[in-house]
Every structure is written in structure tokens, then in C-alpha cells.
């Protein structure tokens, strides 16, 4: 477990630094300011990706398309979820659902989640949005780790770490994170599907999907402090309901190889 924690810290360093520097630079360009955070997070993710041992310069397999997907999701958020799903969904021989169905479902799923939150970014505190994205990313990383893939957990970690820039540069509602929900869900939905499609573990299928709906709780924006606390408790509850069963099927405290 100490090794896993150490690796996740190592995985986090490069994307955090690059995302923060790029976001800081883009903030100085008035024209790019509305997307500064989104582009910074994408750059952090891409930089972190190319520091991993599994990265290749020219895509060969479905996984190799993650950096390109991050770039197009950041540059053309509203039209790219279908392209991201097309390149990232694998074509395994006995995959359930079959590839074309999976591409369709993931495109609808990504659009559904990202569109609502993107539309509401003017009303949601950006720091709250990014915080919930980071919590969701961490939950996804844990589920993927429990499904026996350190590589997928690392990829989720790269995106979660990159979001640190968005947290640091969070300003007034709707400030500089236009398109961020498309980037986050475009990468994370596909990654969780890949994790589900690859796994030979006993992690329940719904554990791969449930964390992704947790940020939707932010669409409920009550004014009272008590209800705000209830809102965040609801996010945490959804994430725990996804993570705890995944932890229990293969307890990390049992013997490791």
C-alpha cells in the first residue's frame, strides 16, 4: 500500500506543476482567460501522461489516445465527447456492450453529465465544482485500483492532480473554467468504462459508474448553510457507496503480492 501511495504522489507531481504554470500563463491572456483553467488542466494531464512508462508518441492502441482526447476536449468541449469515445472505447472481442453501443452510451452519458454542469458553472462556486471533481477523481482512482489496474488508477490520478490548478485559480462563479466539465467527464467516463471492460476482478459493475454522477448533486444549489452541508454530505455518500463495496471485495489490508 505504501508503494501505491508513493507512486500516486510521483504521478501527481508533474501534472500539478505543469497545470499550475500553464493556467497561470493563460490567465494573463485576456482572450483565453475563460478557458485558462480548462486548458491548464488538459496540459497538466498530457504532460503527466508523457512522463509515464506506458506513454507512446503515436497512438496505436485505444489507451494511447488519451492525450489527444484531452486536447480536443479542452479546445472543442461541446463537440468532442463523441470523438473521445470513438477513439478511447476499446474493441475487445467479447466486450459487453459491443463497441458501437458503448461509444453511443458513453457519448450520451458524457454529454448528459457535462452539459448540465457546464450550463450551471455560472451558478456553482468554481472551487466547489473543482473540489467535487477531485473527490470524484480520487474515488474513481480507488475503484480502478481495486479492479486490479494500477495503470488506470494512475491515469485517473493524473487528471485529479491536474485539477489542483483549477482549485488554486478558482475565482468568481463562471470565471475561468468554461468547458471543464466536458474535459473531466470526457476523460473520466471513458476511463471508467475501460476499467470496467478490462477487469477480471469482482468489483461490481455499478461501482465504475456511480462515482461519475456524484458531481450532479451540485445542480442543487440551496442558499442555507445547513442545506449546503447536506449537499456535500450527499456527494460524499454517493462516492462512499461506490468505493466501499469495491474495497470490500478485495480488501487492501489482506496479503498483497
Amino acid at each position: 500500500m505504501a508503494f501505491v501511495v508513493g507512486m500516486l504522489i510521483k504521478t501527481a507531481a508533474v501534472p500539478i506543476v505543469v497545470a499550475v504554470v500553464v493556467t497561470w500563463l493563460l490567465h494573463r491572456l485576456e482572450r483565453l482567460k475563460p478557458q485558462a483553467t480548462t486548458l491548464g488542466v488538459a496540459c497538466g494531464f498530457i504532460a503527466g501522461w508523457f512522463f509515464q512508462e506506458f506513454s507512446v508518441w503515436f497512438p496505436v492502441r485505444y489507451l494511447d489516445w488519451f492525450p489527444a482526447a484531452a486536447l480536443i476536449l479542452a479546445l472543442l468541449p461541446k463537440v468532442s465527447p463523441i470523438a473521445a469515445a470513438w477513439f478511447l472505447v476499446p474493441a475487445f472481442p467479447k466486450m459487453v456492450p459491443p463497441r458501437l453501443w458503448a461509444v453511443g452510451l458513453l457519448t450520451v452519458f458524457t454529454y448528459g453529465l457535462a452539459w448540465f454542469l457546464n450550463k450551471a458553472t455560472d451558478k456553482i462556486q468554481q472551487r466547489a465544482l473543482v473540489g467535487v471533481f477531485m473527490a470524484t477523481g480520487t474515488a474513481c482512482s480507488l475503484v480502478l485500483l481495486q479492479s486490479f489496474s494500477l495503470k488506470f488508477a494512475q491515469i485517473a490520478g493524473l487528471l485529479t492532480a491536474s485539477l489542483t490548478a483549477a482549485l488554486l485559480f478558482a475565482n468568481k462563479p463562471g470565471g475561468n473554467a468554461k468547458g471543464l466539465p466536458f474535459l473531466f467527464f470526457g476523460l473520466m467516463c471513458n476511463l471508467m468504462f475501460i476499467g470496467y471492460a478490462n477487469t477480471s476482478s469482482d468489483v461490481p459493475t455499478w461501482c465504475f459508474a456511480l462515482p461519475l454522477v456524484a458531481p450532479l448533486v451540485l445542480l442543487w444549489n440551496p442558499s442555507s448553510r445547513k442545506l449546503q452541508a447536506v449537499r456535500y454530505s450527499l456527494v460524499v455518500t454517493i462516492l462512499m457507496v461506490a468505493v466501499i463495496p469495491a474495497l470490500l471485495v478485495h480488501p487492501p489490508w489482506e496479503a498483497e503480492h
Partner: protein
Amino acid sequence: MSRNILIVCAMALLLTGCNSEEATEPTPAAGDNTPPATSSGSGFAVTSENTKVLFVGTKKSGDSQAGGFKEVSGTIGVDGDKITSVNVVIQVDSLFSGQEKLTGHLKNEDFFSVKEFPELTFASSKVEGSGEVTITGELNMHGQTGEISFPATVSVTDGKVKLDAKFKVDRTKFGMNYTGQPDNPINAEVDIEILVGA
């Protein structure tokens, strides 16, 4: 707003409703009740019952983990008391090891990517010698093909083939680059043992 949330939740249910494929029970490993090998024409049938494919992975520290594959099929070409070819298909999903977590990790993307590459194949291009032979051929593993050559002890008696081979395969040449702990990495070379007619 609540209607919108309901629509998205319905989409979530659609995705979660896609159940993974039912896990199939692996066939038993070759054990004490191994039936006698059968020959088919000029070929000897390699089956899960008469063949063992085992491996041992090691770490820099010397720690090792053993495992193998339960489902093996193929043919060994026979000409008199010599073998002329070896063609084997292994179902990677039949991989086993002593630990559930290790088995799951080996099947996943960090190693064999079993869902993407469900079969591992070997097709010999030449077999040199008699008794103590050298088998050369194409190994297709993890979606990549490479030539390997290994020594084997072979005997053919009354149509039954016995083959015993021990050799090493560099997994990194087949795209399995996972190294594990930086201070105690997993060695690139994996010890392989194949026993036919055991």
C-alpha cells in the same frame, strides 16, 4: 431541474445495466488423472489434460511468484520418433497463480490485457535435432509477435509425445512493461516451463 437530474440518472442506469460477461469456470489443471496422450494422424494433440504451461516471475530481490495457464490446445507434428512442429494456443483467461489479487493483476492491462488479447499462440517454424531439440517459432503474446527459440527434451514412444522445455521469455519485448516497485522491480525475463505428456 429535478427532471434534468432524473434524465441523467436514467442514463447512468443504462450504463450500469450493462453486465460484465459471466465468468467461465476454468478447466482443471493437468493433474494425477491425466489420460494418456492421443495422436491424431501425424499430429499429437496437445490438450489441457496432457500439458502444463507454467511460469515463474521474479523480482530484483529474488522474490518469486509462480503461475500457469489451465487451458492449452494445439498439435505437435510427429514423424517417426521425431517431432517436426509445435503449434499451441493458450487461453490467457485461464491464467492462475497462488493469489487472487496477483491473478487479477496479471490478467489486467498492466500485464496480459486478457480481454483485449484472449489468446497466446506459438507456431514453430523449425525444429532442429532429435531427443534434445531446439524449437524456433513465432510467439504471439499481448498482441505482439516475436521469434523465440528454446531447447527441449523430446521423446516419442508408441505415438505418445513427451516434451519438457525450460526457457526464459523477455516480457518487455511483447509490450508488458510494468515494472512494479521502483526499489524492487519485476525482472523482464520470466521463467517458462512446458511439460507435454506429463
